[in-house]
């Protein structure tokens, strides 16, 4: 019993769906991180991203291409289910594109709109305004320090330097509340006074730049602004440093503002490129999912098509006579019911066919028995007459007995020989064994058969040169030789005045299967139209000494080799026997 199974791709399908889900989860969870760090080639995590973005689609493309090539090959070989699978696959891809294209267009539009929104929503103005305010505040503080330090009030305040430092500091604070500390150095760089917030204290006297504004100092998370100026008091040179400590976090916030403005500036500058980059990334990440979807479509199409392909294949096998074909299915759907119905139908067909074959056999043997009886009866009459004539002469005219004896005995012997030959042919036909196939070169066998009849052929020529020397079939060598021999003998007998026998061959394809077609052509008188249906019937012959089994044996040999035989004949032109044997 031949069986087919469906549903063996379920595990592969499950694995692919699992990969599909994992890929989606990875993209959802890590997309932000990937976008942030992808441009930095030194990050090892990016190797994984490149693997997913570049290598994975390539692998998927390779697998899909392999599947497509297989499908194309199956279609070329007319494998059951291949056409339906192609159509199903095209349908799945069409559905996938139908759902992906609008989604892609929407995403592309969404990306563009979002980027444009951020560029147009006044965020740039807000950032620039924020930075401008910060700068105004910062510069305002710095200028305030400079204005104070260079004001004519300072020398007056400094008069308290030696006498009352506390009053000096109090006066500074009263004069400018935004000054958080004050420090005085003498001409030798020694510190004479420090009052106010200790974060502002310098350990060495500063080198005063033009304008007196010292570089901003970051200390302990605080930013410190200073202004230094030299003052002459009682002929002595003093350096007065005043400063202010910026609000905690000012620097960090200012840096964040600067960075945001920088990012905004870049976005503004490379707006189109960035949108293009996002779109390219969208497609790079969508492509593996789309390809995975197509691969799943392949498996799904295969899963759906499997029972139908099995059914088609089984139908072909049944048509070829293999009634042991059965379809096994694990599913419980309508296709399983169809498979069960098919199995029942084939079982009933096999049963009916068995009965029919038995009946045909009985009928055939009955016909053969009748014909055989008829053929045996024919020579019995002359034998009986010859025997009766011998007896009559012997009893009535013993003198002339010798005259009758010899021709009568000769007639009896001839008829017995004829009977013997007929029974020999019958035995040969009945005992024709099952073929033992081997790879046989047709031309060799045809030439061997032709050689057997070269002495008998007389004026008939036999040409086997039109059989390709490399042309082979899977056949029983002896039976094939007998087939050629019988056809050639038949042709020779059909051309008593001479003629030509031509044997040719070619490879042909019928219903997707390869056959070797053999032509055996003679230039005889052809077969009369009224007897063409009888040509292969046992014991049918038009020849005086024919047994009527030659072409029957040929037909039997061809059928036993799963081949077919037919002939074309034209009166006065000749007959061509056409034999198709599986290549």
């Amino acid at each position, binding site marked *: 019993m031949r069986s087919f199974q469906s549903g063996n791709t379920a595990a592969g399908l499950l694995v692919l769906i699992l990969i599909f889900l994992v890929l989606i989860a990875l993209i959802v969870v890590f997309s*932000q991180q990937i*976008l*942030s*760090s*992808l*441009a*930095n080639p030194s990050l090892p995590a990016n190797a994984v991203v490149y693997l997913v973005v570049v290598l994975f689609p390539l692998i998927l493309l390779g697998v899909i291409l392999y599947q497509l090539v297989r499908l194309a090959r199956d279609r070329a070989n007319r494998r059951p289910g291949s056409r339906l699978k192609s159509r199903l696959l095209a349908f799945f891809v069409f559905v996938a594109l139908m759902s992906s294209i609008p989604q892609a267009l929407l995403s592309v539009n969404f990306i563009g709109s979002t980027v444009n929104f951020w560029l147009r929503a006044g965020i740039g103005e807000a950032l620039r305004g924020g*930075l401008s305010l*910060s*700068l105004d505040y*910062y510069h305002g503080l710095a200028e305030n320090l400079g204005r104070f330090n260079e004001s004519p009030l300072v020398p007056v305040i400094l008069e308290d330097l030696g006498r009352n430092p506390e009053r000096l500091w109090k006066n500074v604070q009263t004069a400018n509340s935004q000054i958080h500390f004050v420090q005085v150095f003498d001409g030798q760089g020694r510190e004479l006074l420090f009052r106010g917030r200790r974060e502002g204290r310098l350990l060495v006297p500063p080198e005063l730049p033009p304008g007196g504004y010292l*570089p*901003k100092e970051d200390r302990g998370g605080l930013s410190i602004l200073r202004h230094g100026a030299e003052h002459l008091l009682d002929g002595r040179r003093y350096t007065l440093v005043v400063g202010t400590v910026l609000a905690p976090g000012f620097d960090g916030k*200012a840096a964040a503002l*600067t*960075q945001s*403005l*920088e*990012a905004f*500036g*870049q*976005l503004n*500058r*490379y707006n189109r*490129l*960035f949108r*293009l*980059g*996002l779109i*390219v*990334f969208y497609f790079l990440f969508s492509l593996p999912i789309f390809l995975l979807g197509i691969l799943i479509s392949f498996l799904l199409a295969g899963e759906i098509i499997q029972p139908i392909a099995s059914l088609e294949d089984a139908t072909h096998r049944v048509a070829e006579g293999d009634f042991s074909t059965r379809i096994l299915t694990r599913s419980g759907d309508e296709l399983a019911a169809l498979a069960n119905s098919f199995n029942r139908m084939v079982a009933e067909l096999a049963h009916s066919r068995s009965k029919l074959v038995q009946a045909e056999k009985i009928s055939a043997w009955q016909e053969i028995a009748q014909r055989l009886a008829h053929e045996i009866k024919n020579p019995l009459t002359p034998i009986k007459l010859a025997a009766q004539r011998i007896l009559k002469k012997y009893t009535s005219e013993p003198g002339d007995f010798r005259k009758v004896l010899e021709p009568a005995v000769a007639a009896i012997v001839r008829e017995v020989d004829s009977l013997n030959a007929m029974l020999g042919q019958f035995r040969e036909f009945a005992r024709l064994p099952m073929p033992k196939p081997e790879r046989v070169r047709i031309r060799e066998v045809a030439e061997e058969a032709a050689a057997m009849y070269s002495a008998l052929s007389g004026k008939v020529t036999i040409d086997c040169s039109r059989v390709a020397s490399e042309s082979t079939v899977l056949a029983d060598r002896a039976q094939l030789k007998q087939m050629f021999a019988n056809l050639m003998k038949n042709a020779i007998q059909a051309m008593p005045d001479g003629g030509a026998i031509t044997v040719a061959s070619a490879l042909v394809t019928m219903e997707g299967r390869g056959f070797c077609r053999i032509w055996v052509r003679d230039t005889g008188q052809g077969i009369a139209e009224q007897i063409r249906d009888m040509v292969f019937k046992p014991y049918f012959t038009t020849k005086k000494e024919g047994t009527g089994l030659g072409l029957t044996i040929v037909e039997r040999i061809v059928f036993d080799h799963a081949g077919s035989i037919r002939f074309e004949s034209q009166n006065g032109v000749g007959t061509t026997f056409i034999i198709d044997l599986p290549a």
Partner: protein
Amino acid sequence: MGVSLDYRDPRRGEVLKALEEGLTAEIQFQLRLYRRQPGLLRFLGDRLVVERRVLQTARFDSFEGRYRIRRQDRELGAYSEPGEALEAFCSLSDFPLADLSEAGPGQYYIAARARLTPVKMVAPLNIITLFLPRLAFSSPWLEGGLPP
């Protein structure tokens, strides 16, 4: 042994333009110290002794009104003059590469190149550098022997 490099390219002007727009510029110096192989081993190529990458960034500090140059995570200096800032940004001065006090003459040589990015893109905008490599310019490798 200290290495000094100076990157000169007409596109240095793009750096100043970017800095004035409030953007950050980046330059990466790649230094390789090779030891020449003796005899037949020369066919196998010279041996890479040490390789260093030095990353410098420049930006304009609007608060200070000065150009700030940083190397890796350390501030190199702040400059009021754009020309001075550009010189400091595009050069590497006496960078310690390796200790070769006992090296023989002609035994070692240095290969160096620079990669200038006038506008250092911030994430995630930096993805465009994958599609637009012309945002950065690389010099060819230059080789030089060690002074005696």
